[in-house]
């Protein structure tokens, strides 16, 4: 039964707590003599941990098919994790084939960014085209929320799947200028397809 006029979001009045049929979790857990003695439960616990130990050690000798070893760890610097297409990594500016950036310095990403990480100075070329004279993205303020990619009307800035080489030993080197942000179209092609698919008309 909805509580108010039809159009509002459907928060119905459900079963009050009194008449709800709950599931009791505590009933059969009083300690039998078996559990009062510490020893047997400790042995059961050690069985679990030793099973993990044995399986993992075995995993080194004859690894399961398709994996190098059965242990869950990824040896990061040597092996990399396959990231899903949705992953939001570092924001990058997309470069047109002729080397100029797609961005027309409209400033939408600058307003939509919650952390005010982007600061743009727009300018016009002689043929009247707008382009960003300077485009500074402060990586110390960016929180990878993806709003800039979502609002950009020109697909000029996208969240690439790069996440390496960002750690620095001094903070001033983390304010990326236009040159550090530019990426060729091919390298972010996957991401652009992905954007077109998720924001396409069929989802509305």
């Amino acid at each position, binding site marked *: 039964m909805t509580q108010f006029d039809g159009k509002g979001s459907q928060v119905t009045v459900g079963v009050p*707590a009194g008449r709800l049929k709950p599931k009791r979790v505590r009933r059969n857990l009083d300690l039998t003599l078996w559990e009062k003695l510490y020893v047997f439960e400790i042995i059961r616990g050690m069985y679990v941990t030793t099973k993990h130990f044995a399986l993992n050690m075995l995993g080194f000798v004859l690894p399961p098919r398709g994996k190098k070893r059965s242990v869950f760890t990824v040896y990061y610097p040597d092996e990399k994790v396959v990231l899903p*297409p949705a992953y939001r990594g570092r924001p990058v500016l997309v470069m047109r084939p002729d080397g100029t950036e797609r961005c027309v310095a409209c400033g939408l990403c600058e307003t939509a960014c919650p952390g005010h990480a982007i600061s743009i100075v727009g300018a016009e070329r002689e043929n009247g085209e707008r382009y960003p004279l300077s485009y500074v993205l402060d990586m110390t303020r960016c929180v990878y929320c993806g709003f800039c990619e979502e609002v950009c009307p020109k697909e000029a800035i996208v969240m690439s799947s790069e996440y390496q080489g960002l750690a620095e030993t001094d903070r001033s080197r983390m304010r990326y200028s236009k040159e550090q942000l530019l990426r060729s179209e091919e390298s972010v092609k996957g991401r652009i397809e992905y954007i077109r698919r998720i924001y396409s008309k069929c989802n509305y």
Partner: protein
Amino acid sequence: MSEIAKDLHTEHMVINMGPSHPVTHGTVKFLVTLDGETIEDLKVEIGYLHRGFEKMCESGTWYQVFPYTDRLNYVSPLINNVGYALAVEKLIGIDVPERCKYVRVIACELSRIADHMTNVAAGGLELGAFTAFLYFVEARELVWDLIEMLCGARVTTNYVRIGGLKNDLPDGFKQKTLEVFKRCRVLWSDVNKLLTKNRVFIDRVRDVGTMPAEEAIAYGFTGPCLRACGVPYDVRKANPYLVYDRMDFEVPIGETGDNFDKYLVRMEEINQSMRIVEQALEQLPGGPINVDMPYYRWQSKDDIYNRIDSLIFHFKTVIEGIKPPPGEVYLAVESGNGELGFYLVSDGSGKPYKCRVRPPCFPLTAAMPRMMKGRLIADIVPTFDMINMIGGECDR
């Protein structure tokens, strides 16, 4: 004995379990007055992670609040997103399509599984069971892979939008979920074997931090801690939002409200959440996931790229923000720690006038002195872990 104690003139030892202490996860200070090992008096001081959530919400548009809601209860970020989006939709009076409701329920339940796993793991870690902690961190890693496939980020998801979602379920999601749940159930049973019947663990958590039901209600307990006291109050059953009324799941309750009950309720809720996700994946309907109303939901990129009126309208809504009708609304959702309420006041402008979050773990932390009076100092550890106080949510 008392006359001997008189001239023993022993005075109490005051210990400062400061914010940077292993048990307080870095955001709470306990001022403990000790008589030997028993706690005479406990003063709790919070606010070490107060980051000005409400002030930042009031200075951004309605859309820019989403990244801030991720960081409230950062163990289950999607539930905060969905809660805020539902509150704004209730304020505006729009309703999202069916498929979007199902995907939101799936996202919420995945986040709840991650929340309960992290809490039980941290509880085990603080008591010394480091292996159980790492088994559940491994299980949570698998659940996070699902959330990363869905939303693009592991912790700060920023996935839900007002009137819809950012993107639809990726393909192959259902098959991967069933795989992940199979492994999660194996790890769940491992931790269950390690902890539930283990006399050492039971001794540490049984009859510690007990709370009778009426007092729990008076203190404002909600969520697993209230259900552990035997009160079957769950917002998903009391005021079912989205499609929870079509889901068949049970609400586990305990008996005495001590830490062992809280642990058991959370372990049971992990199973129930897995059941809900599987049912939701079965009944998932087709159709769009966003409401087609340009005033409240950014339009699709096809329109923006090709039509000039959509482009102009897109500029207007992004710069000024959407404008819900003036008014106020309160909506509660069931988060990992209890009832997470959003109280929104809108004055018709693009910025929220007031965006209040009712933090479920706030009253639980307030009741810590009541639970700890007269207990031993070592009892603070399991009690504080089992109420799952999250800095971002408690201090906002």
